[in-house]
């Protein structure tokens, strides 16, 4: 599904990603861990096409197409979803209206008819239940005045609405209390099927208690320096990153 080869990317002339290789197949869950500043969020942003970052080398193939040549919205319509670490507020635009536009835009891309108002409302009710999102929130402006936990739930709600092929979740667990973490993580698990894939970026093992990864990668200084199975996350939780990164210190 996703094939990243020797990906290099920089922001404001500073190189952050220095040769990433990553293969994600349908049905898989990958976790990307690593110390602060190792390039985890940059990887997520570059895959989604954030214009702040410049790709300097390498290639990314998504569902057989050259992802890097596509505009952000087309990547999204193809089924690439980014769960934001810091979701932005859009004053005056209700969640319901925002999602209706997004859902119908993606349907249009796939050559499907737009949803009728009734169908859309039903879909929204059904999906907000996945993350136990207060249905009142969908009548409020996008992320405006949402608590930290609500914003993260709202990201997963949008993921549920858009039903992506590949979801990249950037620190969806940060800032969540135990209950919210469980709800968000269970939500993600519920949405997982054999046909889609999830890449979760996280600092902590605790998220992976719910979302069990097939592969765990350690990102350090812009490269994946180590990959393993789910036990790697537990080992990192116990022993930290030192044993891995000593060799890579400059």
């Amino acid at each position, binding site marked *: 599904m996703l094939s990243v080869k020797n990906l290099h990317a920089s922001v404001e002339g500073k190189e952050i990603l220095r040769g990433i290789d990553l293969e994600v197949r349908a049905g898989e869950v990958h976790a990307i861990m690593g110390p602060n500043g190792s390039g985890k969020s940059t990887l997520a942003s570059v895959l989604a*096409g954030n*214009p702040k970052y410049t790709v300097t080398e390498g290639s990314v193939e998504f569902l057989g197409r050259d992802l890097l040549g596509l505009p952000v*919205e087309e990547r999204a319509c193809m089924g690439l979803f980014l769960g934001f670490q810091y979701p932005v507020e*859009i004053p005056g635009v209700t969640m319901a209206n925002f999602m209706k536009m997004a859902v119908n835009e993606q349907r249009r891309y796939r050559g499907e008819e737009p949803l009728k108002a009734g169908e859309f409302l039903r879909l929204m009710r059904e999906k907000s239940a996945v993350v136990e999102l207060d249905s009142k929130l969908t009548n409020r402006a996008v992320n405006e005045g949402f608590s930290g936990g609500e914003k993260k739930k709202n990201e997963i709600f949008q993921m549920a609405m858009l039903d992506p092929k590949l979801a990249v979740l950037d620190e969806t667990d940060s800032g969540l209390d135990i209950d919210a973490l469980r709800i968000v993580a269970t939500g993600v698990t519920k949405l997982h099927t054999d046909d889609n894939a999830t890449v979760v970026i996280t600092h902590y093992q605790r998220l992976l208690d719910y979302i069990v990864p097939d592969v765990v990668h350690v990102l350090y200084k812009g490269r994946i320096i180590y990959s393993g199975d789910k036990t790697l996350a537990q080992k990192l939780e116990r022993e930290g990153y030192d044993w891995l990164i000593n060799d890579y210190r400059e």
Partner: protein
Amino acid sequence: MADKDRVLIEDIERGEYKYGFTSDIDTETIGRGLDEDVIRLISEKKGEPEWMLERRLKAYRHWLTMKAPTWAHLTIPDIDFQDIIYYAAPKPRKKLGSMDEVDPELKRTFDRLGIPLEEQMALAGVAVDAVMDSVSVKTTFRETLAEKGIIFCSISEAVREYPDLVQRYLGSVVPYTDNFYAALNAAVFSDGSFCYVPKGVRCPMELSTYFRINAEGTGQFERTLLVADEGAYVSYLEGCTAPRRDENQLHAAVVEIVVERDAEVKYSTVQNWYPGDKDGRGGIYNFVTKRGLCRENARLSWTQVETGSAITWKYPSCVLQGDNSVGEFYSVAMTNNFQQADTGTKMIHVGRNTRSRIVSKGISAGVSQNSYRGMVRVAKGADNARNYSQCDSLLIGDRCGAHTFPVIDSRNASAVVEHEATTSKISEEQLFYCNQRGLSTEDAVGLIVNGYAKEVLAKLPMEFAVEAQKLLAISLEGSVG
């Protein structure tokens, strides 16, 4: 600024006026220039009584002593007032047989704005009666109003048919001495609307200039007089989001509203005149004086969506003369390319317990300049007057300007006047967020702008609001590629 942002801005600037100009209207005109003979001729052509001519001449003589105001934050080219044609009576346009004969481009615009078919036909000049069912909308409309005793006609007709009302109210809120452009208008006004709602009558429908009898060709010096008698209510819609075919560069309109005791008037405007091209050539200069007078317990609410004109100079105001009267001003002013807008309001509190509320939303793109200018004056006797003002500016790109010139002049210690202002930009993060959900940048900008303007759009009558929303998006549109 990221490349993407730059591309977006360039695209927005290219989003040119979609409606273009048509010049197939035959007009009967008199020569250029202005003197007393021209005014006599205008008055004669319109078959006016002597008193009206006297008023015009008085205004003209006063105008000669005045100078064009220069205090606005606008760069106004020198206007040669002797190089203007002051009278042009539109001859009826050739009626088209059906919608098929209408310019497809125009039709496409109508469709995108979601204008009902009947209205499309009227605007495009199709003979409505020929196509529609036996009872035309206009006829039904006229009958309903007549039953209630509501007068709604052209101002020329009113001068002839209802001289008492016109003499009593015309110039009572905006006298010819008021300002340079108001004086000019009083001297040469071509036509406009007159509306009178009798005591205690609630006008059962939105009054739209579109439905007015003799609605065609109000010309460049439009004059509107609206009177809501005691306890009456009327909601009035001026203009239309549809294309305005217009070849006059200078517009100087006057709108006067009298809201008698316990009456309420809502006045909504969508202004979509030609703004000039992306290099700043052409476009309408729009100098408008709009003011309403509120008696005891009266309420006047102005709502405006301004997206057109090269230059906009406009301050719909409320004189809150009666005790407990209420004035409101809700505005969205959008400028793009080389457009300049200096717009706002005045709230003059004279009576006790008067309240006013100002919500102004400016949107600037391109190299445009957008200014809010507002005055809140509380007179000595206006005990317990209250005002709340909120002025927000939204910038798109980094070459445009947003300015705020609020003036508060309070002479009563019991008054409470609040002013809040914000300036924001559409952030790259917001656009990226929308893009990531599958929305194009164009759609995202439209969505964000409409969200920003929502509080004002919500004040428009429902159908008008939908059209205005689309208009805002279209006005910012280019082809993002």
